[in-house]
Structures are given as structure tokens and as C-alpha cells.
């Protein structure tokens, strides 16, 4: 904002030597008035500029201070371990676990509690009190927006659905029923079965239907680069669930962390196993866990460690099989519900022809059939489209059908 102020014209006086003294006095008087006015104007400009200089000086000070702060060392994190009465505190630095006794400023002494996280500087004096820590990643796993899947969208898994609801929903909704009978509700259910049979969908429907906080995660997210991070995430996850209780934790593809323990000595495996052990102790360990239900899903049931399958951890092992013909019919009806399907299409007939299809394959069948109709420039899907889609899907899945099943030297 550099601006050179426009200076007023400097008044000049040319006195006529031949004028009378009265005229000269007049002229001088006029000149004096001019000079006073100009003086006033300049004075005002000077004030402005001085004010501006003050402003800039403050700006400089501020920037200097900012620069100073930037140049000072960052603060360290520590946890308050103990608060003796004399206004001091025992704090333990994160990382190197050094314990230090430090004086507290009176301002902080009142507010501080044991277990708080604080920021300390180089000389170990407490600078600030920080918020309670839950891993931001654990926070991110809470599902705020419930998925759009409802129980009605799940075809043919009536038994499985009932078991899941009994184990997960009822204890949260009607705890008094369990109190009356005097049984502990099952704490966890494990859904297992071939791919595409609706395990995750079941969990989604539960999330949609329940009022409890729903926390979802994939087992692979628990595998971390650094030792101890995976188990900390598990701990944070359960802590978060406890804060939000009643809560449902859903762990998809749990085989990523809960594979059988072996003697393998590679550190990567060992760390994954430690993460699992944390999971084991959180699920049914020493600490009371509160009103938390766990749902897990896997399609490698055979790979799971036996410790995670024992009652008390996963009480219910629910198999989600490939659908039977009735279930297939129901699934097709659900998927075709939105589609413009000709009345002549008989879903029970179609279900009989799609033996060994999983739920996901049936969904794909319906979509493909729609695609065939679009290719044909129709807006109604006919039986022929489903047949074409079936041919396409079966051919895709079975590329080796032309070759021998086993080498011909084996008979």
C-alpha cells in the first residue's frame, strides 16, 4: 500500500512593489490564511501517515513473534501418571517412557487429572492439556449413515437372519428377556460361507435396522506396518464401542487377522498374530466389555484359529450357504423388483435352471439380462435375455471346460 501523498500547492506571494501598504497588508493577510489552511492539510496527512506507521509496526511485531514461535522447538506428548498434592505432577513421556516430576502452573494444577494427555516442552513443563485420544482411524469406522439394505432385501436366508437377530439385535433391544431367563446373550456371531452368499449384506441389514452404534471394519485394516499399531487399533476400536455402547462391531474378512497360529517366525506373520491375540483378549478377556455385540464374516472358515471360535468369543457360527432353489427364486424376485420384466418370465423356473449360483451371481444374472434387453433396444426383459445372460455367465466361469479335467495320464 505504498502511496505518496499528494501535497497541496505551496502558496506563494508576489507582492506588487507599487501597491499601497493597505493593499500589501490585505495581500499578506490572505496569504497567511492560505498558509494556515495548507498547514492544516499537511498536519492531517502527517497524522494519517503516523497512524499507518504504527499499524505497520504492529504487523512487524506480530510477524516477528510468529517467526519466533516457528523457530521454537515443538512440544512433546506425555501422559500424567500421578498428581502429588503439592502442585507437581509425574508425567511419562510417550516414546521413550521417561518419567519426570514437574511443577505445574497453578492454572493447570486444578484442571489436570491422572491419565490426561499433555504437551510438554523441552524443560518438561506442561504447556497444554490435550483431548482424550482415540485413534482417528477407529473413529472413522463408525457408520453414521445406515446402509440402504433392509431385512426384506435378503432372499432365502431366513434361518440365518433369525439367528443373527437373536444373537445381535434382541440382546440390545430386549435385554430384560435375557435377564428374565438368566442367560448371557451370545457375544459374537461369525458368518461363514462361500463368496457371494450375502454375509456382508446380512450385516448391512442389521446396521440399517438397529439403533445401536454400528462400527464396521475390514480385517485387513487391522494389519499395520509397525509393531503394536494393529493391536492398538483393535483396542481403540473396542474402546470406541464401549463409549458408544450399545454398539455392534462388524469385522469383514476376519481371516485377514484371525488365521491359524503357526510356528512361522517371520515378523510380519507374528505381528498379524499379535493383532489377533489382542482381538481375542478384547472379545473375551479380563476386562468387562459392556454392551457390545460382534459380527464377523469370512469365507475361509477352515483357516480361522480355533481360539477365536470357542464359545464366549463367537458363540454362534452361522453358515451362509449357496441358496437353494426357493431362495434363488426369492433372490431373483428381489433383484428383478426394480426391473421391467415381462410377465411371462417364471422365476421359479429360472431358479431351477440356475443351480449352484450364488446370490451375487444371481444379481449379476439379472443385470446381464437387463443388458441384453438394452442391446436389443427393448425396455422389457424377456426370458430369453435371462437365458442369454446365463449362457454368458456360465461360459465366463468355465473357460476350461473344453480341456480334460485331469491330465490324461491319470485314469
Amino acid at each position: 500500500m505504498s502511496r505518496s501523498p499528494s501535497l497541496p500547492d505551496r502558496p506563494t506571494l508576489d507582492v506588487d512593489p507599487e501597491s499601497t501598504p493597505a493593499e500589501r497588508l490585505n495581500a499578506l493577510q490572505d496569504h497567511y490564511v492560505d498558509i494556515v489552511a495548507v498547514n492544516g492539510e499537511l498536519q492531517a496527512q502527517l497524522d494519517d501517515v503516523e497512524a499507518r506507521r504504527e499499524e505497520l509496526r504492529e504487523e512487524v511485531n506480530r510477524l516477528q513473534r510468529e517467526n519466533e514461535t516457528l523457530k521454537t522447538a515443538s512440544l512433546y506428548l506425555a501422559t500424567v501418571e500421578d498428581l502429588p498434592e503439592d502442585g507437581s505432577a509425574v508425567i511419562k513421556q510417550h516414546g521413550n517412557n521417561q518419567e519426570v516430576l514437574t511443577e505445574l502452573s497453578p492454572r493447570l494444577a486444578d484442571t489436570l487429572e491422572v491419565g490426561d494427555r499433555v504437551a510438554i516442552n523441552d524443560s518438561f513443563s506442561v504447556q497444554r492439556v490435550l483431548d482424550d485420544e482415540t485413534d482417528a482411524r477407529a473413529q472413522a469406522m463408525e457408520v453414521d449413515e445406515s446402509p440402504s439394505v433392509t431385512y426384506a432385501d435378503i432372499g432365502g436366508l431366513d434361518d440365518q437372519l433369525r439367528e443373527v437377530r437373536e444373537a445381535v439385535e434382541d440382546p440390545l433391544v430386549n435385554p430384560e428377556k435375557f435377564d428374565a431367563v438368566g442367560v448371557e446373550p451370545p457375544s459374537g456371531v461369525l458368518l461363514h460361507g462361500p463368496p457371494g452368499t450375502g454375509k456382508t449384506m446380512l450385516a448391512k441389514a442389521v446396521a440399517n435396522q438397529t439403533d445401536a452404534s454400528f462400527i464396521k471394519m475390514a480385517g485387513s485394516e487391522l494389519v499395520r506396518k509397525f509393531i503394536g499399531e494393529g493391536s492398538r487399533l483393535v483396542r481403540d476400536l473396542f474402546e470406541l464401542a464401549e463409549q458408544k455402547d450399545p454398539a455392534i462391531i462388524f469385522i469383514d474378512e476376519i481371516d485377514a487377522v484371525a488365521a491359524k497360529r503357526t510356528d512361522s517366525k517371520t515378523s510380519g506373520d507374528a505381528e498379524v498374530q499379535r493383532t489377533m491375540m489382542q482381538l481375542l483378549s478384547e472379545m473375551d478377556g479380563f476386562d468387562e466389555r459392556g454392551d457390545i455385540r460382534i459380527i464377523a464374516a469370512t469365507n475361509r472358515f477352515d483357516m480361522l484359529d480355533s481360539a477365536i471360535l470357542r464359545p464366549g468369543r463367537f458363540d454362534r457360527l452361522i453358515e451362509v450357504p449357496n441358496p437353494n432353489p426357493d431362495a434363488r427364486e426369492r433372490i431373483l424376485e428381489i433383484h428383478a423388483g426394480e426391473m421391467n420384466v415381462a410377465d411371462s418370465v417364471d422365476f421359479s423356473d429360472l431358479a431351477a435352471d440356475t443351480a449352484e449360483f450364488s446370490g451375487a451371481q444371481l444379481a449379476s444374472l439379472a443385470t446381464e439380462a437387463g443388458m441384453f434387453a438394452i442391446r436389443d433396444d427393448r425396455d422389457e426383459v424377456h426370458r430369453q435375455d435371462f437365458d442369454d445372460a446365463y449362457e454368458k455367465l456360465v461360459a465366463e466361469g468355465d473357460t476350461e471346460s473344453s480341456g480334460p479335467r485331469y491330465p490324461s495320464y491319470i485314469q
Partner: protein
Amino acid sequence: MQGQNQQQAYDRGITIFSPDGRLYQVEYAREAVKRGTASIGVRTPEGVVLVVDKQTRSPLLEGSSVEKLHKIDDHVGAASAGHVADARQLVDFARQQSQVERVRYDEPIGVRTLTKSVTDHIQQYTQVGGARPFGVALLIAGVEGGEPRLFETDPSGTSNEWKAVAIGSNRGDIQEFLEDEYDAGLSVDDGIDLALRALNEGREDALSGDGVGVGIVDADTGTYRELAADESQSYIDDIEDAADDSDDDDDEE
């Protein structure tokens, strides 16, 4: 993943035991047997029946070139499942042994003796470095002193004597069927019938005379013979008729 690594360290050489006492190469050889088509043996007081599944992968393949039934001596036959070429080696060995027996002692070799010498031979290939186990199992059927005998050999060199047994693919289901349906007093015809029905149990497509092989060692004559395709077909027709009849019975109920 972890299991595999651990296992791989012990499956390189057949002469190396795994810490839990297994010989992985031998177990893999058993897998080769499971991939062969089924062979079934049924022992009856009148003789031993061998039935093999000869389904061909192509209609152009000559069924007679599928080697699942082998004649070892006049009084001994064998059915194999697994590597064909390995089976031929064992059959050749067995034939030699039976000829040696005839030259040395001038009498037909005992089925049990023959089986033991074959399994001893197989066993060597599980204990000698640089070799690989036989990827084949045999059913050795014969008559010894007028008595029908039925033995099974497997890639480890173990032999067992059976009343009725199946090897090859679908063994579990077929064996279960045999256990349910076997009767000690069967005739040879009943034995063929039982074995064919057992074979049909695990199959998707229908049996045909070309698609099965039937070998019989008759206790009276003490000779091994194989049925021609049309003879097998007539047995299959009988089974189908009987099945139809029982279907009709069901309908009437």
C-alpha cells in the same frame, strides 16, 4: 500361507519326514490316485468282481485303449486308479513275480504273496532318495487255494485285504454305498450288480457298456476274464430295469 511354507520344507524329498511324521510326497501320490476314475472290487464266495469306470473324455477315443483292468496271471487280475504308466510298471512287475513263482515252484503264485511282493516294491520308492512314489493304487483280485481274495495296494506300500473296496475318485461315497449294501453271500452276478450300482452312485451321466470294464476271477475255474462291452451292457440294463420297477412300485404306493 504359513502352513504352506512349513509344509514345503518337508515335501521336497520323499525321504524326509515332516515333524508330525508325514511323508508329503507319498500323500501327494495318494492325491493322484484320487484323481483317477473309480475302480471297485467286490469279493463273493463264488469269485471276485472288479469293475472300473472307463468313461472317455472324447467320443473319438477308443475305449479299449483305456487301461484300468489288467490280467496278471491266469488266476489273478488287477484294477488300477491313478497314473496309468505307473500302473503298467507295477502290473509288469506283478506278472514277472507270478512267472518267477511258476518257474521256481511250478505252482500259481498266492494272491497274498503276490500283493506283498508288489507292495514291497512300492515301498522302496518311498524310502530311497531320488525316486518318486508310484502315483497309483491297485486292486489285486485272484483265487488262492480255491478261495477268492481281494487286496488293495496304495502308494505308501500298504496292503489291505477287503470284502469290497473302491479306489479312485469319489471313493468315500462309493465305499459308503458298498458298506450299506454288501452281503457276504452274494453271487458273482450280484457282485457285478452291486459294483455297477456303486459306480453309478457317484456319477452324473448314465453308465454304458463301453464306459465300464468288468473283470471276474471265478473261484471254481480259478481263471480271470474280462467281460465284453455287450455283456457289461446287459448287466447295466438289468440294473436300469430294476430301478424302473422300483420307481413304479413307489408310484403305486
